[in-house]
């Protein structure tokens, strides 16, 4: 196959550079130089600046080959239907939530758990979050799938962010940082105000830990390096070269969220909301942000 390609390009005369250019199909002189229509669409849809942070479940998989357009669209349709039945509040990693789920074994047929959200994973219908709490000295973490139909209620008792997007280190931190009262009352977040960032730095239990938190770049740990045992510092050197990733635009495009996708999802959300409101089925709003004043 390679041989045939070489023969084909050998028909073109000239230097090797011309051969390469002749074999390439991009024609920059014919490129579309019209300005992008996205900013205009963003204004029309009242695009939320921090859409990927508010709705991480409506994003696309960070793995390029796992992005399947049809499957994602069908999943998003189901997600919107579910959001019309259950009010899923806006929350972040670091917010304190109370989840009430159906449990056939308990007398009250309900199981309520209060905890701090330590991580949010996966996109689409499989989106899950983990709540952590220390109950009578026992640290407990429960993973909830956000769109699981056995969830009856999700309440955000305290809406706030932390310095990290992943608070898994709380398992090795002192238990006081993971203890939250089950009967705590919700703190209402005034609409239109920015989400508060709790810049708390937790103190760790003495090493050994379950993971090497000191090299993971966790901003919310107070001096992890000093607290770690010397064994893990003995031959520490960079083996993986990933400093360039912050400049890598292609990597950004392939793993992150693009404005085009965000606008498409926002448009779908608003159309769905509008159709349900006009049908008189419900007044529930899906497309909203706690940091943006409701107009």
């Amino acid at each position, binding site marked *: 196959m390679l041989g045939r390609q070489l023969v084909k390009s050998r028909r073109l005369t000239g230097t090797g550079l011309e051969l390469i250019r002749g074999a390439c199909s991009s024609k920059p002189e014919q490129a579309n130089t019209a300005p992008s229509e996205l900013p205009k669409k963003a204004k029309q849809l009242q695009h939320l600046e921090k859409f990927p942070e508010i709705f991480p479940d409506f994003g696309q998989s960070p793995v390029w080959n796992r992005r399947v357009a049809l499957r994602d669209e069908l999943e998003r349709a189901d997600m919107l239907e579910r959001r019309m039945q259950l009010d899923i509040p806006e929350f972040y990693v670091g917010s304190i939530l109370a989840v009430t789920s159906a*449990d056939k*074994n308990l007398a009250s047929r309900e*199981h309520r*758990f209060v905890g701090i959200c330590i991580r949010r994973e996966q996109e689409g219908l499989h989106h899950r979050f983990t709540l952590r709490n220390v109950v009578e000295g*026992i*640290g*407990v973490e429960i*993973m909830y799938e956000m769109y699981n139909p*056995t969830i009856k209620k999700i309440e955000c008792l305290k809406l706030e962010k932390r310095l990290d997007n992943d608070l898994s280190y709380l398992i090795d931190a002192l238990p006081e940082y993971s203890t939250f009262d089950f009967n705590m009352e919700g703190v209402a977040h005034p609409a239109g105000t920015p989400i508060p960032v709790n810049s708390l730095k937790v103190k760790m239990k003495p090493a050994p830990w379950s993971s090497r938190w000191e090299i993971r770049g966790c901003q919310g740990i107070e001096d992890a390096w000093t607290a770690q045992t010397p064994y893990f510092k003995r031959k520490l050197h960079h083996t993986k070269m990933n400093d360039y990733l912050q400049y890598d635009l292609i990597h950004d495009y392939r793993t992150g969220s693009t404005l085009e996708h965000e606008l498409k999802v926002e448009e779908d959300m608003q159309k769905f909301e509008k159709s349900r409101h006009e049908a008189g089925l419900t007044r529930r709003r899906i497309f909203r942000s706690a940091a943006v004043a409701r107009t």
Partner: protein
Amino acid sequence: MPKAGLGDKILVAIRGQMRKAYVVGAHVHRQMRQHGVPSTDTNNIVLLEEEGNPLGNRVMKPIPAKLLEKRDHAQFSKVLALANKYI
């Protein structure tokens, strides 16, 4: 290799003796977690004596509510009878 999870009966060596026990709290790797099933920081057990009855009189600490699915089990229901708090 056979593994024990939440609600399984295991044989433990404790204080120089071999005893049977039920697992009432398991620390589960984050990839193996199931929706709604709690993962405790420590692995917790309730010791049993020779006839299979719980060794103690009370279970002081909370245990996962998922264990209530086993309330029809003859031996395990005795452990559940001692528990008073479910998480």
